[in-house]
């Protein structure tokens, strides 16, 4: 299977990445080679093998979930300090509805 530039563009849209024409061409070749390498997984019959879920015992984890209560009350100024744009106590973002 050869990865086309069209499929690279389709994936880039899903990933919200604007690629240049040069990047698209380069990625088509690179991803094709890497996916080709991954095809070796098809050598193995895994029809009776379960999908890996967690490396530790999950029951152990379920026992110790903390209570769902606020322990770190949000501080608006601290949380907004890294905002690219803010307006009083809000994040300012581009218009969503035209």
């Amino acid at each position: 299977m050869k990865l086309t530039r069209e499929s690279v563009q389709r994936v880039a849209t899903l990933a919200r990445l604007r690629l240049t024409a040069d990047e698209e061409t380069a990625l088509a070749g690179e991803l094709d080679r890497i996916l080709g390498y991954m095809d070796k997984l098809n050598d193995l019959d895994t029809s009776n093998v379960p999908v890996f879920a967690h490396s530790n015992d999950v029951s152990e984890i379920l026992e110790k979930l903390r209570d769902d209560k606020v322990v770190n009350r949000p501080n608006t100024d601290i949380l907004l300090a890294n905002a690219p744009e803010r307006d009083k106590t809000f994040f300012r973002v581009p218009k969503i509805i035209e």
Partner: protein
Amino acid sequence: MSLSALTLQQASEKLRRREISSVELTEAVFQRISAADDKIHAYLTLARESALEQAKQADARRNSATQLSPLLGIPIAVKDNFLTRGVRTTCASKILGDFMPPYDATAIVKLHAAGAVIVGKTNLDEFAMGSSAENSAFHPTRNPWNLGRIPGGSSGGSAAAVAADECLAALGTDTGGSIRQPAACCGIVGLKPTYGRVSRYGIIAFASSMDQVGPMTKDVSDAACLLQVLAGHDPADSTSSIRSVPDYSAALNGDVKGICIGVPKEYFVSGIQPEVEKSVRAAVQELAKNGARIEEISLPHTEYAVAVYYVVATAEASSNLARYDGMRFGHRAEAKDLTETYMITRAEGFGAEVKRRIMLGTYVLSHGYYDAYYLKAQRVRTLIRRDFDNAFTHCDVIVTPTAPTTAFKLAEKTQDPLQMYLSDIYTISTNLAGLPALSLPCGFDNDNLPIGLQMIGKHFDEATLLRAAHAYEQATDWHKKTPTL
């Protein structure tokens, strides 16, 4: 000898006896950084002022408190993917801009509670994606043993800082070998604990089912000492284990008698540098000489590990990195509408390798490919885990090379992503299986570059792992060799 050349525990002993103060020790570390870091470029951000303040507080605490941590007053470097309140955190990416974390990672909280001094933030491959530290958006880091070589990655800055005495010990993270491979390249000790042993809260997520925090140190007992402080359950990380934490330093009795060491035959195949194989085989002999029982074992699915990893890790990364959209923090591009803003922000903010992995991860999760790649890989991951479960029914520790070669030259593999991925061939399986593993020095190649020995332990059995590594270290003096800058 400069104070910065001391091991963590040597310095801790001198502090305890009041032969030195933490302020003196911290000043010595910053002097060393001034002299060496123009060549090494291990750090992205130095926190001199806050470090000296922490050192002063540590000295004061020594005079007033009774229960003192061995980390009290010890200068430690931190990989720049740990959130540090008030200290810029970049993950070596342009997309985070001058991000100032609103809180500390749990590992950092624990260091502060123990009274450690945070020297600064070290360089890495952007978002911890890489094996050479060359994917940093800022600058590459150089290997202290040879400035033309890479320090390994992704925790390359932390490894180089430890090797060049620009700190006493460091923190790294390891998703596919990012603590162990740079530790091998720089001739230091690097430990990736069992998945769940150390909290991941506040480390910038790459592949959440494999990311793990660990110590990078000058010797094995320092690694035990630092792990002791880091390990334990954290309510803020639901994947951190509630199992009790044993006394790691107490496990270091210098004895490997009766321990069964497995040597997997699949790890000594084509592509391995002959001097690496020779040194690792010699290390196995040394362990045998000290009373360990050696057994050849088989991990039959080893050859599939790299393929599984680069499906699973990129899938998780593409999801984790969706949060970098320029809305609430970091870089935001100017564009005509919201979708364009997202797309251009991410295009400008991410480097080539991060884009490649996001693309790969999005592809393997996309409609029509999810079963063929992602689910298939997660099934093979189960087989890899079973290989280890089988081996550990009769072995206590598995010994392998950490990396197939010693540190390669800068720019040698940057044009060939697949070759770069294959640098992780020996380290990746343990992340897929969630097992603890460490790298420690076991020799030098003909170019005087360090060779790393990897030891893999049973689930949550860091104690036996550290014990075997410590016994080997006691029997050899590789860890005492230091680079001359």
